[in-house]
């Protein structure tokens, strides 16, 4: 079968071409970050030189100090952590409970409710933002953490994902527990939920990153300077810090935690972000 193997695999030249193709794209993907990093420590004159420089002559960390004077980045960051963290915890718990119900329990109206929730997947988030703003304005929730958090806590996708996961777990666990006299809540919290750790982790990452990256709703409901999330703060940063290397420093500071988290947990991170597709 020597002949077949030769036909089947790629020739070395093809392999080389593919590597070059990927390398070119990889450079395109990574270069802006490199430029960001070096640009944040270069003075504007160098940054905007007519002959582009790829290395700073004298790295200068002052933009990093200046940007924290000009813009409350720490506050923005803390707001994002509080909002994303709370949303994630609540959304995942609530969606897990709901998913368990649809997967393991039978109840009146099950089909209709599930169909409704699936229908919600088709609704774009922007459709509800105007009324939510009016409602929250009336309830005094503007510029508050609950105001930013509440809409994000309903995750139809989360319910869908947890339902699929719980369906895949054996029904015998519940039946055995019922025979032993456990009530439904204990069965959920004590048996099925702990088994759902991988799905919970994936969903948590998915919700956290989705909330972290959000701009439109946090900007609408909480524009006040002390309540801005990181993304909202960054959206307005050029008004408060017109110097390019300062803006770059702010971006670097914003991106570093996420990049580090990504580099440390690549497989899980990628799985979490691509969670929407993992229903093969």
């Amino acid at each position, binding site marked *: 079968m020597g002949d077949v193997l030769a*036909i*089947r*695999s*790629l020739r070395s030249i093809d*392999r080389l071409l593919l*590597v070059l*193709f*990927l*390398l070119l*794209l*990889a450079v395109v*993907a*990574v270069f802006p970050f490199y430029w960001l990093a070096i640009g944040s420590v270069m003075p504007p004159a160098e940054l*905007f030189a*007519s*002959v*582009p420089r790829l290395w700073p002559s004298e790295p200068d960390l002052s933009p990093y100090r200046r940007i924290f004077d000009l813009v409350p980045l720490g506050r923005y960051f803390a707001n994002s952590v509080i909002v994303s963290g709370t949303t994630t915890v609540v959304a995942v718990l609530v969606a897990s*409970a709901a998913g368990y*119900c649809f997967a393991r*329990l039978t*109840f009146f*109206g099950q089909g209709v409710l599930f169909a409704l929730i699936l229908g*919600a997947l*088709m*609704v774009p988030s*922007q*459709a*509800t*933002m*105007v*009324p939510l*703003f009016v*409602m929250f*304005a009336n309830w005094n929730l503007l510029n508050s953490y609950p105001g930013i958090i*509440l*809409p994000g*806590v*309903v995750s139809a996708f989360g319910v869908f994902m947890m339902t699929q996961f719980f369906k895949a777990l054996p029904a015998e666990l519940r*039946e055995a527990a*019922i025979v032993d006299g456990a*009530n*439904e*809540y204990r069965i*959920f919290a004590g048996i099925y939920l702990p088994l759902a750790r991988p799905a919970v982790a994936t969903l948590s990452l998915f919700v956290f990153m989705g909330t*972290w990256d959000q701009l*439109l709703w946090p900007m*609408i409901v909480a524009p006040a300077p002390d309540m801005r999330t990181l993304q909202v703060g960054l*959206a307005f940063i050029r008004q408060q810090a017109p110097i390019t290397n300062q803006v*770059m420093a702010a971006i670097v500071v*914003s991106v570093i935690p996420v*990049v580090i988290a*990504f*580099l440390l947990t*690549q497989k899980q*991170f*990628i799985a979490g*972000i691509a969670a*929407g*597709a993992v229903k*093969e």
Partner: protein
Amino acid sequence: MAVTVESVGTSGLRSRPTSFGETLRKSQPAYILLSPYLILFVVVLAYPLLYAIYLSFFDATLNRPPTFVGAGNFIQLFTDAEFYTALRNTFFFAFFVVLGETILPLAMALAMNERLPFRALFRTAFFLPVVCSWVVVSLIWSLLFAQQGLVNSVVQVLGVSPQPFFSNPGQAMWILIATTVWRNLGYYMVIYLAALQGVPQDLYDAASVDGATRWRQLWHVAVPMVRPVIYFVLTISIITSMQLFIQPFIMTNGGPLNATISVVQLLYRHAFVQLEFGYGSAIATFLLVLLVAVALVNKRVHDLVVR
């Protein structure tokens, strides 16, 4: 009074509740576990959605009771040139972004599926833009394409005169498209790659026994096998592109002269800058109908095309 029949066995598990009251009572734990989600769902999604549709028939703003205008908002919307500009921009953007996001990542995934060196490094590199938020990505590309930015410097070094970029309607739109595709390449590549890795080796072997080169194997075996995933990528790419907001908001603010304004951006301007809640809700209702229509058409095509 309903007569119930105890089934054999003392565990209390009945295979079939025999009255409606029975059914409801058995449903109680489910309702309790489901209630947090249901309550939030109604408060934050269902009710506001209905309210949005309701509001679109009114002229509403802060500190003033809304006035009923019937179809007034919609008539104004469908006779507004700015609306059609936003729609055109959004569709133009969506078309090319979807093209780029569906095809190029597939090619990348096909390459990454082969036994090549440095694959882990490549995967990290491609996913780096994906972990960044759209605000960050938009800011980075704004800086790159600034009048005195890096790209113009390189362009001049190559002997070409400096380009207007964001001041030019055509170039501005293409920069938005490129930014979006750049950020999403890694995301869709990873999805395709996962699908490709599920293609069994025997299929390739069978093709090679028939004399197919690796390239033909890929085209005739791998790609058809991942057709459902291509379809899936197409779907989410279309739906997310239609909701374009951050890139034009950050990079061009819809300019120059509305050349890059998107439908969601129009909604933002009317509802949250000019505080025209009724008109904004009309745009939101339109967007809802548009996206639901896209989802339904998509599903129909899916059922026809994917076996």
